[in-house]
């Protein structure tokens, strides 16, 4: 019997650690050998991880004890629950009391019952391997001592104690062992799930490493993109019109390659992320039967792929951004190429038509200038105004007209530079005739005509003094003044 008890104790050796003692919060009740009050025949105690010890009289519910000790939501697994002899009674003394031993066994039962129902297997095992175990060892040692000094007075209690532990073994330890076996099997199954999933994930590691390596290399090409496009842009900005198609095709081909690289990498990363996510789903599905156990012991199913999937998504995002960057820069370059193409086309068309246009413009200007000459000639060749009554020509305006035409003579002589625009040549041929006629009119013809007409005025009764004034002016070469006087005299004849 004794050995059986020790065997039960040693079964939890792997959990062990002897509980440390600490300050005991006593209930203050004194121990009594009689069984009038439960607090006089035993206690249930709890050692908190921070060292605070709380004890309550035997019979206090374990829940109340835990509450009295304070919340231990996060730390219960390191707290200790154990039975204790009445205040002031040593363990050696306690085992000699049937009442005390019975109570300690009841308290042990209560502790085990409560923790088995409410604590996780791991916490439960921890408890059994903790101070409770130490108390039991102490009881065992006390029992040894008692056996060695067997006294008829204690023989009966010892037998009772052994009997109680035999009962405890069958009633509590068998299920406890079973629970631990279940846990072990669950852990083994979880290990299998993890191992199987790791095995599934294993081939993907190489793919991931390969994609990560490609991505690493791809990232380094970012600067070359700018360099390459700058080079294409520079050449395009200097290219002749018929060199642009080659550059355009080069740019198209370059951008296709670069976009394809981004797309392929993104597609690969997407496929792998998807594959990983599918396997993760399988892993989660396989773990599903163990959810309760995992939640109780581990609080969550270990995340095996989150990092990789996130990393792959980041790669995809980078590739998308890179492609957008390529698109934007290539589109800008194509716009530049189009603008240069249009400009060069316009320039080439202009160059090829320039000679024809120059001829046309020359002829147009010549025509315009010649037309002006013709108009002036026509105006100049109109007969002077005549008086109504005697039909005498009036010369002052005609003289002014001829004089005004002569002011245009520099247009065709260009005395300063000697150069006359060629488009004036034809007009100037006509103008020369006009100028010659105008000069003759101004210098001789009008004057002579007026001089000849003086006798006409005389015959119409114009005063001699006026006629004399005309002749004096003509002699002095003041033709315009003579013409003005003559016209006045001619108009006078209308009313004479």
């Amino acid at each position, binding site marked *: 019997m004794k050995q059986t008890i020790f065997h039960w104790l040693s079964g939890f050796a792997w959990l062990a650690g002897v509980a440390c003692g600490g300050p005991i919060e006593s209930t203050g009740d004194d121990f009594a050998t009689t069984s009038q009050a439960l607090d006089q025949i035993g206690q249930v105690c709890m050692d908190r991880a921070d060292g605070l010890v709380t004890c309550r009289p035997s019979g206090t519910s374990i829940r109340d004890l835990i509450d009295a000790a304070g919340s231990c939501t996060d730390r219960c697994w390191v707290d200790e629950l154990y039975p204790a002899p009445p205040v002031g009674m040593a363990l050696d003394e306690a085992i000699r009391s049937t009442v005390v031993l019975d109570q300690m066994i009841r308290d042990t039962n209560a502790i085990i019952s409560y923790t088995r129902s409410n604590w996780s297997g791991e916490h439960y095992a921890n408890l059994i391997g903790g101070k409770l175990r130490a108390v039991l060892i102490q009881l065992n040692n006390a029992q040894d001592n008692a056996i060695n000094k067997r006294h008829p007075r204690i023989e009966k209690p010892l037998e009772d104690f052994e009997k109680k532990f035999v009962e405890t073994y069958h009633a509590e330890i068998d299920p406890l062992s079973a629970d631990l076996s279940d846990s072990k099997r669950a852990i083994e199954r979880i290990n299998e799930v993890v191992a199987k999933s790791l095995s599934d994930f294993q081939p993907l590691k190489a793919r991931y490493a390969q994609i990560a390596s490609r991505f690493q290399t791809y990232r380094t090409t970012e600067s070359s993109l700018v360099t390459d496009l700058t080079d294409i842009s520079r050449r395009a900005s200097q290219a002749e019109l018929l060199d642009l198609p080659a550059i*355009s095709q080069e740019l198209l081909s370059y951008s296709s390659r670069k*976009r394809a690289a981004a797309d392929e990498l993104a597609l690969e990363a997407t496929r792998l992320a998807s594959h990983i996510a599918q396997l*993760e789903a399988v892993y989660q599905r396989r773990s599903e039967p163990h959810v309760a156990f995992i939640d109780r012991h581990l609080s969550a199913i270990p995340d095996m792929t989150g990092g990789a999937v996130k990393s792959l998504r980041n790669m995809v995002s980078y590739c998308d951004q890179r492609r957008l960057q390529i698109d934007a820069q290539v589109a800008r370059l194509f716009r530049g190429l189009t603008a240069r193409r249009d400009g060069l086309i316009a320039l080439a*068309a202009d160059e090829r038509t320039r000679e024809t246009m120059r*001829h*046309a413009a020359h002829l147009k200007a010549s025509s315009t200038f010649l037309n002006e000459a013709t108009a002036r000639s026509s105006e100049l060749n*109109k007969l002077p105004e005549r008086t109504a009554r005697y039909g005498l020509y009036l010369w002052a305006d005609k003289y002014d007209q001829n004089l005004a035409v002569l002011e245009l003579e520099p247009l065709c002589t260009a005395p300063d530079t000697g150069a006359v625009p060629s488009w004036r040549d034809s007009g100037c041929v006509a103008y020369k005739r006009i100028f010659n006629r105008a000069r003759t009119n101004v210098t001789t013809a009008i004057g002579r005509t007026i001089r000849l007409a003086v006798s006409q005025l005389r015959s119409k009764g114009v005063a001699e003094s006026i006629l004399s004034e005309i002749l004096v002016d003509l002699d002095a070469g003041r033709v315009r003044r003579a013409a003005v006087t003559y016209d006045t005299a001619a108009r006078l004849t209308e009313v004479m």
Partner: protein
Amino acid sequence: MQTRTRWMAAALVAATVAAGAKKTSALSGSMDLISPATCSTAQAGRLHTCVVADRTFSSPGAESAVPMRTKVTVTKSGTCTTALTLRLSLKPQGEPAVLLPFQSTREIFLRRRDRAPITSLLIEDATPNWTRALNVPSSCRYSLQVVGNEPDVDSQAEAQAIIADLEQQLATKRTESNYYRNLVQYHRAFMFLQSVATNFHEELTNETVQELRDGAEEALNTLSVLASACDDAMTEQDRENIMLLFFSLPQLGSADDWRNPDGSTKTLADCFGSRDQEIYALVDRLAREHDSENGSQYEEALVQAETAVVELEYKLTLARAQLASWLAGGVP
């Protein structure tokens, strides 16, 4: 329950990551249609609950001198037996959508009506409910490859025909340009000669000359009187001058020769025969109608024609570059 939700979410994430939401990519590229990336694998050995997300393929908008097409190819592998007929909608920008039953059609060419490059191609699942209802063995794979904007050519002869057509267009345009070049010069020459003729006409018919003609006969009489009366006072030179006048004044002709019956001075056209007048009037009207302060319409047409020539030369060069592989006898 919590765990079940978790792995279902993971499966959904897988599909979402694979398919992408409204993703855009280059006009050339690939996408998975039916694969573990687009379907759930929750049922062992099966692909099901597939989602083909919308995808837009885009092009940077490069120019083309030759007709273009976009090739869409479907690749299938594995076992994909199903009674469902799945279709994709392929919609080039500005063009009607084309339905692609991708289980039965392996290749399709998309062309714009004007055969220009497609700048954007939207691919959508036209039968999303059936795709979601699909349940095929896990080996089933359908993927789609888009080769955007390739020359719509299948042989060297076709490539050569395109070049020949462009060369013919260029030759025609050059002829047209030369025609306008000549026309511009003829037009301007006509207008110039018209000016010259008008100037001469004015010299011949101005009022002073007509007055001279009108008075020439009387003037000769007067000269005759004057010469008789003043004969003693005249020198030999004076006599020669008067004789010159007697001889040359009649050469001015009659002013009536330059007048119409209504008394108006004859225009240049009035000096032509009636048929010639019609032709002259037509040509003159054409010349004036096509002229303006800023130049003639023929000049504008010449610039346009010559611009078209240069554009065609550029286009021909671009076409040769685009079809280089075909023209060299190879296949791109």
